[in-house]
């Protein structure tokens, strides 16, 4: 499933980032989003986009279109 479809507030593991461009993957890599790494989907903005993601102890927001391209497993 993609990060967009994944349930809130549960531990997820990144499987792949294949739909994203090379540059986008490099940016995410340096935030700590890469295959094998853990993350958690925390909540969604009042208007439905973007989403908050917890990586380690930090909270980041990512827009839906990016979340839709991140494959995860629980």
């Amino acid at each position: 499933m993609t990060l967009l479809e994944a349930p809130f507030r549960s531990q997820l593991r990144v499987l792949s980032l294949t739909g994203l461009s090379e540059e986008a993957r490099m940016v995410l890599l340096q935030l700590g989003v890469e295959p094998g790494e853990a993350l958690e989907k925390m909540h969604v903005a009042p208007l439905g986009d973007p989403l908050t993601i917890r990586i380690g102890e930090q909270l980041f927001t990512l827009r839906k279109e990016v979340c839709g391209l991140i494959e995860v497993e629980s």
Partner: protein
Amino acid sequence: MSQEILLVGRPNSGKTTLFNRLAGTNQKVGNYAGCTVEKKTSIVTSPEGIEFELTDLPGMYSLKPNTMDEEVALKHLDSMRSTAYLVFVVDGNNLEQELILPLLLHHRGLTVAIAVNMMDEVSENGKSINTDALRTRTGIEFFPLSAKTGDGVEALKNHILSKTRPKNPRAVLAPSVLQMPEEQFRLAHKEAKAESKRLSLACVTQGLDNRLLRRDLRIDGIILHRLFGPVLFFAIMFVVFQSIFTWASPLSDGILFFISKAQEVVRSNVGAPLLSSLLSDGILAGVGAVLAFVPQIGILFLLIGILEYSGYLPRVAYMVDRVMKPFGLDGKVFIPLLSSVACAVPGIMATRTIENERTRITTIMISPLMTCSARLPVYTLLISTFVPAARVWGLSLPGLVMFAMYLLGTVTALVVALILHLTSSNKKKNVIDMIHLPHYRTPDWKLLLRYVWGRISVFLRKAGTVIAGMAILLWVLLSFPRDEAFRASMENNLKTANAEQKEQIQNQIAAKDLENSIAGKTGKFLEPVFRPIGYDWKLTIGILSSLAAREVFVSTLGTVFSLGKVEGHEEGLSATLRAQKTEDGKLKYTLATCLSLLVFFAFSLQCISTIGVARRETNSWKIPATMFVYMFTLAYTAAFIVYQVSSLLLK
């Protein structure tokens, strides 16, 4: 040449707070060449009297740039001198992620010192970091500190200013890291990441409960709540808007009161009329034009400072991101645009909080289209003079027109943003739009006041000089040359006149002076240009003089129609405007003229202060010149269509 010390770190690592601690009040604010990214430097002197140049580099997450700020920081690292020394600032709360970048550079042979910031929060969180162990394992100097409280900053300062600290063995970073091929970079990153993981496992004692993150999530649950979140958002935005729209004006009025007192003193004490006029109407008025903005800027940045330090500002951006997305903007644009509804000058200054260069420029370009408070006196005069006080669907027509003007400004601003978005090459767009949500914190008043003062002093020194200069130049154009023969004959009449006649004569002199001035002659010369949109030379002079500030249009019309001061009793001016006839006896100014003027003022950049501040914020005349031209073109075209169409329809 003094040695360079560079502060490097992620955005939100507390780098700038640490910079302020190390630099004290001795700071220089400029821009990096060719872009709007702000450059902060300071000269710090060691006890031995050696000078060091301390630079606060823009925040960066990585060596593969996502934003203009990162690109600028990397370029600076790329070209730094061999004597330069890097101090990495990392957030101790998130050491495992934050150590990757400094370790990567260290592996490439670049000596770094690491300031582990936010130690106060680390211990509050029940964690501890063994910096001695980190030092022994890596050979890097580690300094645990809190830039917020100041603990540990002295030790770092002593280290970077000492003669014994290591120098960089490598002259330049490139091409070893910056131009590293993708695969090699991945490997280097992996290696650094693995070491960072090992180090944090060995040297960081985890707290039991992750108190801070859990507290953040609890607060987020309320503040970002589907219903309560937007309610709180509107309440806070209302306060922000009110503060610059309403609360700042008594302070501005106070400043202008002192300026007017000073003008009176000059007028009554300086004998030579020309010098007295230059001092009071030229220089003092120019200085007043600048100082009048200080309360707005001070209050707005105090509020932005509180919102930013407390962690709410990034969450505002998060909540409104969805609204701004269709226009190619992001959530950070909201506060600058909202501020511009009061005044584009603080609005444009507030674009500092937007990290993306392209978005920042777009916001600067569109913010003068928002209906600022300086347009209100003009709109009020025009609407009350020409729009019939009728009712439409039970609503007052003048009120509806005023509302339509606000709507027109906002919609046009967003449409222009969309056009800029669709036509720009995507080169400088962020690869990923993301916002870091920092911990909630209580703002520190000292840091806050220093931040506010920083913004005010930059405005006064960098933008204020340009604005005052332009104001004085405009005054010269509006006052010279004078028809001395006419003045002499009128002053003769003054001697025999009674009080009422005196005022009339003085008003006539003022009108004649304005008509004969360079600006007055230019207005007459330009009349053919403005005739197609319905203006005669008198209105054209009004348009020219309103470059100083839009509301000056009203007082200039007062002068040009020999009415003297009209502020506070505009009814006389309204009646005069309505009564003007053309040579063949028809009404000179009609509803069509009014609509044309409304549209013209909505779109054109009639404000030297905005031009001055846009120059300062973008570090070149290119953006303000572009703004002036595109807004004038838009204003003229729209006014032409409105005037021609409404003249036909209203016949």
